[in-house]
């Protein structure tokens, strides 16, 4: 087989915030770095993060500190998080945010000129450093503009389809570049996965075509363990109308700025059910909730700012009870704040500029005048590659993971704002430790048979040409099935059906054909992504079947309550010797006394 070969000390796969931050750190440590982007540089899904970066800078409320952030993250994750990751994250996020400023990021400011922070769901104090509602763009652009001067080799529009191993160790990767369709072989002493999520396994998602579980699957196929795969986050507010925009994210910042959720009867239904573990922190009347959003330190947060898993379920409850909006969602209203703030319409446009434009342009709705219609959308997966908290190394030597495709920090549910901080905290760590590991490694043997085999498999869809089924039809069928059977509300019966349904889908995926040639051929790319989508779908379904309780993003109507027995374990997925997927539980290590004390203090 014919392919280009590249050699780097550290190869980073994925160029969103986590990948860029890892590449910057590794290159600063003096090793050569290659950075593979599935799209063009700077287009990754990080740009879609709107609300902000959670970091206990305490610029707006001086009661905030890492302990509160840690406790909030653990509570949001329903205590099945990797507590060490949650601790490192809470402690290091402020430095990572300040570092962004030193690299040129321009955050909104407080009155005394420091980085401004806003309220967000599940965060006790205003904690999200932000730039209007385009914080993700600011973050990725800052890292991109800093990174391009670091001597990193960037491979744009390149997709990795297999990791290469020498014995137990990962020593490279194999993929193709989109433009000409040529294969590329990367030799590397360490590989960092930073490929993001799996949203395209579902029909309604905020994720773009790229998020097909690539890193999850590459790691799984290389023998690494995945953990917490049952925990998928359905963001409560996606657009639902018109149909073509279904799933596009409506930032939580709308609620942070005072937006309220209402059903068709005009009732603020979020007051109807407040979970016990949040009751003490949640406002019990509308007035108090409003004061909280306006910075009153004595007020408690409105129930719209409860965690995303809970808000999503409440929305589903309203829709199922027939109290939804005309197009099958609920109403999210920010326009009402005009009655409370001077120049209300301008205030809304200033605080939520991209939401204003998004609705105006895509739905003909002026959010300063009328409510939006919203419903849950698949947004994020808490589960991913099982990594060591400090180094981000997976269970396979030489393979690291950071950001959404790694797991642990978020437990059963991620708090808004914790992903942007996660990617810079653990992106940095992954880069640092991958570089350190690479320095200890001598040359490895690249087994070209592994690459040849991957190349042959990748070209099979062309052999079948258009006589095979098209890849999009298989993708749609999978998305429909996962949406219906392994979605927001799950049960044994439906998930068993999904498991059964995966087998014929895999058959169909193995028979898809594509026409045309290898140059920039989206049909071919879609065909190659199917294996990844099927793998993560199976991992999600199998893990979700094992967790016979409801916790965080995982809700089962056959086990609707939390069960303490499941509060001390995580489910791990691994490829068995026979090639079949195995799921087993592992005990969560006991938390050190000082962290327990932090959690007790913050109750």
């Amino acid at each position, binding site marked *: 087989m014919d392919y280009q070969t590249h050699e780097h000390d550290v190869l980073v796969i994925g160029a969103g915030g986590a990948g860029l931050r890892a590449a910057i750190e590794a290159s600063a440590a003096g090793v050569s770095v290659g950075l593979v982007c599935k799209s063009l540089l*700077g287009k990754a899904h990080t740009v879609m993060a709107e609300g902000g970066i959670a970091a206990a800078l305490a610029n707006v409320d001086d009661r905030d500190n890492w302990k509160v952030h840690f406790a909030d993250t653990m509570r949001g994750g329903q205590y099945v998080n990797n507590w060490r990751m949650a601790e490192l994250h809470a402690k290091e996020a402020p430095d990572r945010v300040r570092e962004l400023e030193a690299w040129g990021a*321009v955050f909104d*400011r407080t009155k005394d000129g*420091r980085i401004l922070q806003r309220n967000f769901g599940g965060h006790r104090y205003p904690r999200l450093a932000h730039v209007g509602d385009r914080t993700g763009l600011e973050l990725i652009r800052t890292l991109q*503009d800093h990174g391009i001067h670091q001597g990193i080799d960037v491979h744009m529009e390149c997709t990795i389809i297999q990791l290469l191993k020498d014995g137990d160790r990962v020593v490279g990767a194999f993929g193709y570049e989109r*433009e000409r369709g040529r294969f590329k072989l990367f030799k590397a002493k360490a590989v960092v996965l930073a490929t993001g999520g799996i949203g395209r396994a579902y029909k309604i998602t905020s994720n773009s075509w790229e998020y097909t579980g690539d890193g999850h699957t590459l790691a799984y196929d290389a023998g690494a363990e995945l953990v917490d795969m049952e925990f998928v986050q359905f963001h409560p507010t996606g657009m639902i109308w018109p149909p073509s925009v279904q799933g596009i994210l409506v930032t939580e910042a709308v609620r942070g700025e005072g937006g309220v959720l209402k059903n068709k009867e005009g009732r603020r239904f979020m007051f109807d059910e407040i979970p016990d573990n949040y009751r003490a922190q949640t406002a019990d009347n509308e007035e108090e909730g409003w004061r909280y959003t306006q910075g009153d330190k004595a007020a408690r947060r409105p129930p719209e700012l409860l965690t995303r898993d809970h808000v999503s379920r409440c929305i589903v409850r309203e829709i199922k009870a027939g109290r939804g909006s005309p197009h099958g969602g609920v109403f999210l209203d920010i326009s009402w704040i005009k009655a409370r703030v001077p120049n209300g319409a301008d205030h809304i446009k200033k605080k939520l500029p*991209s939401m204003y434009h*998004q609705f105006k342009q895509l739905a003909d709705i002026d959010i300063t005048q009328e409510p939006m219609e919203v419903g849950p959308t698949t947004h994020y997966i808490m589960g991913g590659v099982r990594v060591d908290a400090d180094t981000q190394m997976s269970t396979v030597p030489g393979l690291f993971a950071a950001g959404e495709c790694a797991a642990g920090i978020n437990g059963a549910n991620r708090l808004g704002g914790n992903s942007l901080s996660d990617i810079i905290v653990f992106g940095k760590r992954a880069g640092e430790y991958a570089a350190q590991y690479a320095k200890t490694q001598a040359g490895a043997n690249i087994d070209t048979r592994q690459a040849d085999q991957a190349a042959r498999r990748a070209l099979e869809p062309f052999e079948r040409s258009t006589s095979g089924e098209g890849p999009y039809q298989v993708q749609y069928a999978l998305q429909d099935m996962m949406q219906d059977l392994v979605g927001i509300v799950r049960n044994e019966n439906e998930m068993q059906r999904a498991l059964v349904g995966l087998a014929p889908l895999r058959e169909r995926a193995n028979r898809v054909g594509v*026409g045309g040639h290898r140059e920039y051929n989206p049909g071919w790319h879609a065909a190659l992504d199917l294996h990844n989508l099927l793998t993560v779908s199976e991992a999600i379904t199998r893990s979700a079947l094992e967790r016979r309780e409801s916790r965080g993003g995982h809700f089962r109507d056959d086990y609707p309550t939390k069960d303490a027995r499941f509060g001390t374990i995580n489910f791990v997925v691994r490829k068995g010797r026979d090639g079949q997927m195995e799921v087993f539980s592992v005990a969560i290590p006991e938390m050190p006394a000082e962290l327990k004390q932090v959690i007790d203090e913050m109750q």
Partner: protein
Amino acid sequence: MATATFRIWRGDAQGGRLQDYATEVSEGMVVLDAVHQIQATSANDLAVRWNCKAGKCGSCSAEVNGSPRLMCMTRLNQLDLSQPVTIEPMRAFPPIRDLVTDVSWNFKAKKSIKRFKPRPPDAADGTWRVAQVDVERVQEFRKCIECFLCQDVCHVLRDHQMFDDFIGPRHLVYAAALEMHPLDTEQRARDLKRAHGVGFCNITKCCTKVCPESITITDNAIIPLKERVIDQLYDPVAKLFRMFRS
């Protein structure tokens, strides 16, 4: 359901032609939806770049009925569907395939701009103090999603292909964001004049008109940069002063 015809450029660096595709249209659809529908049903290999589908990543730039647009933000109800809708790639850049063009020059051009260099921190903890009013000017420029539509429409690049002499509106906006950054201390005037060719912009404001982020490119970024170049490099008193110093 209604049907509309989309006349899409198919081809590569060697050449190509417009080809008609009929597809069903429904309420709220954008041009990118139509392209995806055609891709999924009748042309699996139709090449198109896209990511966020929400006007935030700047990947799906193309020329729709001749005007540079993001396909994901162009509603079909803004177009006359009784006629075929023409979709072509950005014409300023070399075609790769179908609607995908080679925009790699932009990444090289950006690298030629001197990076951000902040003044020493204001506070002992390594942080700065900056007022909101002082960041707002720069925040306008930092809204840029790098869709390169401004580059596509700029006649210096599109018609005169002066890619070696002029960095284009996008990168002038980027340079402006650095130059006007309240913390930045780097000098870029000489580069702007020579390597970056700010003088080639003759203020036709085509870039401003097509910016999907509504950045006032010419008035707020390019003209102030031109003024900076003149202030710093053509001020006779300063020139005299420099002569003496050297």
